[in-house]
C-alpha cells in the first residue's frame, strides 16, 4: 500500500512540469476566456459585470467581423486547394529519378523554414509599386503599374499567394514521405498491366495518399484561421478591412480597441467553428480513406 502511494507520488511529480506549463499557458487561459466572454469589459466607471450571451449577440451585428469571416473563408479555400495540388505535384517531381533532386527538394522546402516576419518583408518588397518584382513583371508584359497591397481588389489575393508559396513546400514533405512509403513494385505491377502514369496516379497513388491529404487538409484549415504574422507587416488588415482576417480582428479588438470581453467572445466562437469544421472533414474523408 505504502509502495503503491509512493508510485503515485512519483508519477505526479514527473507529470507536474508539463501539467504546470500546460495549465498556466493553455487550459487556465482558455477557461478564463470562456468566463470573460459572459462579462462586459470593465472600465473605471463601469466595472465588469455579468451580461449573459449579450456579447455573442453582438457578433451577428458586427459588419467588420462578417467581412473578416468572408475574407477568411475565401482565404482558406484559395490557399488550401492550390497548395495541396502544388504539394502533390512537387512531391511527385522530387520523388522521381531527377538528377539534382536533393537541390530541388531543398529549394521547395526553403520557404517553410523562413520566419514569417522575414518572408513578409521580402514579399513587401516584391509588391512595392514601380520598383517591386511584381510591378516590373507586370509593366514588362504591358500592364499598368499597380499598388498591389494598397488596392482593395488585389490585396487579399496577394496575401493568399504568399501563403500558398509558403505552405506548399511544407505539405510537400508529408506527401514525399508518403510517396516513398509506396513500394515501387506497385508501379511496376501496374505498368506491366499497361497502366498509364496518369491512370496509376488516379487509381493507386492518390487513394494511397488519402490519409496524408486528410491530415494536411485539417492542418491547413486550422492554419488558415490562425495565421496572422504577415498581416502585421504587410497590410494591418487594410485597406478598408479588405485583408482583415478573423484572428487579426480579434487581436485588434483586444489590444487596439481594448475590448477584451468581446475579443474573448470572438475567440470562443472561432474555437467552436474550427472544432466543427475539423470534425466534419474528418468524418467525411475518413470513410474514403485507406489506412495501412
Amino acid at each position, binding site marked *: 500500500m505504502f509502495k503503491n502511494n509512493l508510485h503515485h507520488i512519483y508519477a505526479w511529480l514527473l507529470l507536474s512540469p508539463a501539467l504546470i506549463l500546460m495549465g498556466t499557458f493553455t487550459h487556465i487561459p482558455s477557461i478564463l476566456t470562456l468566463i470573460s466572454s459572459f462579462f462586459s469589459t470593465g472600465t473605471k466607471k463601469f466595472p465588469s459585470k455579468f451580461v449573459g450571451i449579450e456579447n455573442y449577440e453582438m457578433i451577428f451585428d458586427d459588419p467588420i467581423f462578417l467581412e473578416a469571416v468572408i475574407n477568411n473563408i475565401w482565404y482558406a479555400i484559395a490557399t488550401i486547394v492550390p497548395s495541396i495540388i502544388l504539394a502533390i505535384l512537387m512531391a511527385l517531381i522530387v520523388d522521381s529519378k531527377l538528377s539534382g533532386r536533393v537541390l530541388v527538394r531543398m529549394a521547395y522546402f526553403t520557404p517553410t523554414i523562413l520566419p514569417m516576419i522575414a518572408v513578409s518583408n521580402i514579399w513587401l518588397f516584391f509588391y512595392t509599386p514601380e520598383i517591386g518584382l511584381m510591378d516590373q513583371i507586370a509593366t514588362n508584359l504591358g500592364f499598368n503599374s499597380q499598388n498591389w497591397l494598397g488596392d482593395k481588389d488585389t490585396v487579399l489575393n496577394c496575401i493568399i499567394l504568399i501563403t500558398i508559396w509558403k505552405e506548399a513546400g511544407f505539405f510537400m514533405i508529408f506527401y514525399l514521405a508518403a510517396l516513398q512509403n509506396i*513500394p515501387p513494385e506497385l508501379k*511496376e*505491377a*501496374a*505498368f506491366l*498491366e499497361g*497502366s498509364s502514369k496518369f*491512370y496509376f496516379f488516379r487509381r493507386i497513388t492518390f487513394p494511397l495518399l488519402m490519409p496524408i491529404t486528410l491530415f494536411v487538409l485539417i492542418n491547413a484549415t486550422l492554419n488558415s484561421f490562425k495565421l496572422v504574422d504577415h498581416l502585421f507587416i504587410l497590410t494591418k488588415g487594410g485597406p478598408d478591412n479588405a485583408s482583415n482576417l478573423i484572428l487579426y480582428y480579434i487581436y485588434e479588438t483586444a489590444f487596439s480597441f481594448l475590448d477584451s470581453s468581446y475579443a474573448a467572445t470572438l475567440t470562443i466562437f472561432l474555437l467552436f467553428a474550427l472544432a466543427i469544421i475539423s470534425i466534419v472533414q474528418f468524418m467525411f474523408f475518413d470513410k474514403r480513406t485507406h489506412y495501412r
Partner: protein
Amino acid sequence: MSFIELMNVSKFWGDVRAVEKLNIKIEEGEFVVLLGPSGCGKSTTLRLIAGLENVSSGGIFIGGKNVNNIDPSSRNISMVFQSYALFPHLNVEENIIFGLKVRKVKKGDRQVKLKNVAEKVGLSNLLKRKPAELSGGQRQRVALARAIISENPICLMDEPLSNLDAKLRHQMRSEIRSLQKELNITLIYVTHDQTEAMSMADKIVLLNEGEIVQQGRPKELYEKPENTFTAKFLGNPPMNLINLEVEREGNYIPIFEEKYFIKQKSDKKNILGIRPEDIEISKKGIKCTINDLDYQGSDVVLSLQLGNQEIYARIDSKKVEELDNQVYINWNNNNLHLFDFESGVRDVNQIWDAVDS
C-alpha cells in the same frame, strides 16, 4: 528459334556487374527455374525479360522478335512479385481485374473471367476482402490470379513462395505446377531453394555471380554436375567433395599416414565427388569415425571423419542401431565424380578401378 531467347545478355550498373553474357533458350510451355545463391542476378534476369530494366548489351527475343526496345506492357508478360505487390486499398476482386480495367475489357467479360480464375485459385468467397485481411497464402493466390487472368502466354515469378511456411509452400508448389501445365503457360520462376527448383522445373538455369554455371533438366544437373559449384549447390546435404593428393601411381585420399588410392589414370590433382546417399556402410572399405548423427525421420545423415576431411553419408535410419563409432565405408565406382582441383570442372574421361582398402 526458341520461344524466348536471351543472347549474350549483360547488365551492369556502373561498375557493378549484375549478369554477364547470359544465353538461355526457353521453349513454349516450359517451366524454367532460375536458381542460385543470393545476389547472383536471378531477379535482374527476370526483370530484364519483363522489360523493367534495360539490357546493357545483348538481345532478348520473344516469339522470334527482338524486344529490347519494347515496353513491358507490350511483351505479353505477367509477373508475380515476391512481395505480391497487391494494391492495399483495393479489394481482392479489384486487384485481380486491375489489368482488365486498364485494357478496358467489358464488364460482362470481366466478371466471367474473374469467376473462372477465382474458382481456379480458390478465392471465390474472399473477393470483397482487402489484402490486409488475408493470410499470406491467400495473398499469394491473389497475386497468382492477377497474373493468370490476363491470359498472357508468359509468366514470371520472383521467389513467390518465400514468405510462406513450409507446409503451404509444398502445397502451392504443386498448385502452381499444375496450373502452369493446365494453362500451358511458359513460366520463368526464380528461387534460391534447390529443392523447389528440382521438384518444379522442366529446366534449371543455375547462376553464380552473374554467370550461368550450368543449365539443363534437374536430373542432368543432379547426376552429372559439370563443376564443383553445381555439385555443391544441389542435394541436401550436397555432394561430398574430397580433396585428393597426387603421386606417380595416381590420386589418393590421404588418411593421416595412409593413402587410399583411387585407381584412375590421372597425373593431375583432382577432387573426388560422391553423393551422401551413394556411400555404403559395410564391413570393409575405408575406415572412418562417426562425428555426429542428424536424424531426419526415415533417413539419418552421418557426418564422418575421413582423414582430416569431413563427409556426409545418408543411410536408412533402421540401420543406425547396429553401428559402432568406427565404421567402414564403401561405394560403387559408377557413382563417383571427378573434378579438376584448379578449375573445378568435371573430368569427362573418368576411368575407374576398384578402391584400395
